[in-house]
């Protein structure tokens, strides 16, 4: 009996959908717009947090050691730097690797290649790449490695300060998130009102059937369930349409994302494909909750059972 009743409830909810087809289309469209705005917001958050973590990875201090140091001395300096407070890791780049990296970085500049040929020998010394435990620790480490204590070994130390860029991205991302949240909220409120109105209209359209259902002894849940399922159907369709719009959209913006990441590979489509179940699953649950709240309020107000 349960499955017979369930199949009839599903049938009635599909009838509700088809009998007010254009109203259903409008409802699904509005929920879709809400979900698309939430998805864009999600994508922006992912991109900005990815960008921030990539930038954080790039923060380090390059400590260039004097070329005349022996390997033992280089190792000793490395150990000394490692023991400094606030240091997380120290990577040793030997002279040969430093030269290779230098060549690679300037491969498009023939003058530099010529100059290296002129010199004949490796002009670069080994270097240490120092990572701090926290962003705030870099300046102290830099001050230490450029102090008198290390002057016999260190030729020069450089610190690429990405903090301003990070701050700028954080600010931008916060602003975009705020705007996105407001837009999403507006769409969510509109969705609530539209679903409420659609269910109200459906109750009105089916008033005869509902009154007969009551008369012939249909249970309250049997009368109400089609409207609840209708709300879930709107949420499901909206989620599917959002996914269908979202992935081509991601493919379209991928080149711009690549440009933004300047050489780093970050495949948005792949990321969202891998996380699609949770990403759209939560959106579906959210849309269901929204639809069910609106349906519930409409039924409480207009469906007397």
């Amino acid at each position, binding site marked *: 009996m349960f499955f017979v009743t369930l199949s009839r409830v599903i049938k009635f909810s599909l009838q509700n959908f088809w009998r007010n087809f254009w109203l259903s289309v409008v409802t699904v469209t509005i929920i879709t717009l809400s979900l698309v705005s939430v998805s864009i917001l999600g994508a922006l958050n992912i991109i900005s947090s990815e960008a921030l973590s990539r930038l954080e990875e790039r923060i380090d201090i390059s400590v260039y050691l004097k070329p005349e140091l022996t390997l033992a001395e280089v190792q000793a300096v490395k150990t000394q730097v490692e023991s400094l407070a606030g240091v997380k890791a120290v990577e040793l780049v030997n002279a040969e690797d430093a030269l290779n990296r230098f060549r690679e970085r300037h491969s498009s500049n023939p003058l530099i290649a010529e100059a290296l040929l002129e010199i004949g020998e490796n002009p670069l010394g080994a270097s240490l790449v120092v990572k701090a435990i926290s962003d705030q620790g870099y300046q102290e480490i830099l001050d230490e490695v450029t102090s008198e204590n290390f002057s016999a070994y260190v030729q020069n130390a450089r610190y690429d300060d990405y903090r301003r860029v990070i701050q700028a991205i954080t600010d931008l991302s916060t602003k975009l998130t705020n705007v996105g949240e407001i837009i999403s909220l507006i769409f969510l409120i509109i969705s609530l009102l539209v679903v409420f109105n659609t269910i109200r209209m459906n109750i009105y359209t089916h008033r*005869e*059937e509902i009154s007969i259902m009551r008369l*012939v*002894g*249909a249970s*309250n849940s049997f009368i109400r369930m089609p409207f609840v399922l209708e709300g879930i159907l709107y949420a499901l369709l909206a989620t599917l349409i959002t996914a269908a719009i979202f992935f081509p959209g991601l493919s379209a913006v991928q080149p711009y994302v690549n440009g933004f990441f300047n050489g780093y590979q970050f495949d948005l489509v792949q990321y969202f494909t891998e996380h699609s179940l949770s990403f759209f699953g939560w959106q579906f649950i959210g849309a269901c909750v929204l639809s069910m709240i609106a349906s519930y309020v409409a039924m409480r107000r207009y469906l007397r*059972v």
Partner: protein
Amino acid sequence: MPLIEFRNISKNYPGQTVALHNVTLNIDKGEFVSIVGQSGTGKTTLVKLLIAEEKPTEGRILLGGWDITTAKAREVPVIRRQIGVVFQDFKLLPRRTVFENVAFALEVAGVTAERIKEIVPQLLKIVGLEHKNDRFPKQLSGGEQQRVVIARALAHRPEILVADEPTGNLDSINTKEIIELLKKINEFGTTVILVTHNREVVNELKRRVVVLDGGRVVSDQARGRYVLS
């Protein structure tokens, strides 16, 4: 024990309107009772109270000993499956065929499609519409539409059939047919409560007649006539 007991029932509507005043009435199983009275005397209110569409302001209504005035919302469908109801305005679904209209009562109760295919033709045979199961309500006469409603009301094999002005929209020939059908249903053992203000119908029936006036029972005769107070 009576099948239906109205015990000191009063029903007041907002605005000091008294629809029923201290009505006490017992109806036994298998009876055919006509409840008569002029418009606004509380006949339809009595029906609404019996099918638990409304609750009395005072008093109790017992259905087979069950006090339905204290019934919870989830118990109301159980009451309504025990009482078939026929109204003057038919209440048929215009987009459904005769078969589908009768089947609807069974569908909403979770009866399987196979059982519906067995039960509906039997019901249509009782009301004499077995050959019109594919027709839509607008293709039927008023009397035929009312017969479809009666078939639908019988879908759950109710113990009680309440007909509220079933002949109100019908001509004399159709009226006679519907009354004959109600008598036939009563002969099968179903308690029939006929609410009407049609004097001829009541007088020809020669069954129990309860007369309401101003929300009170003014007459209750076993083989009564429609007497205006």
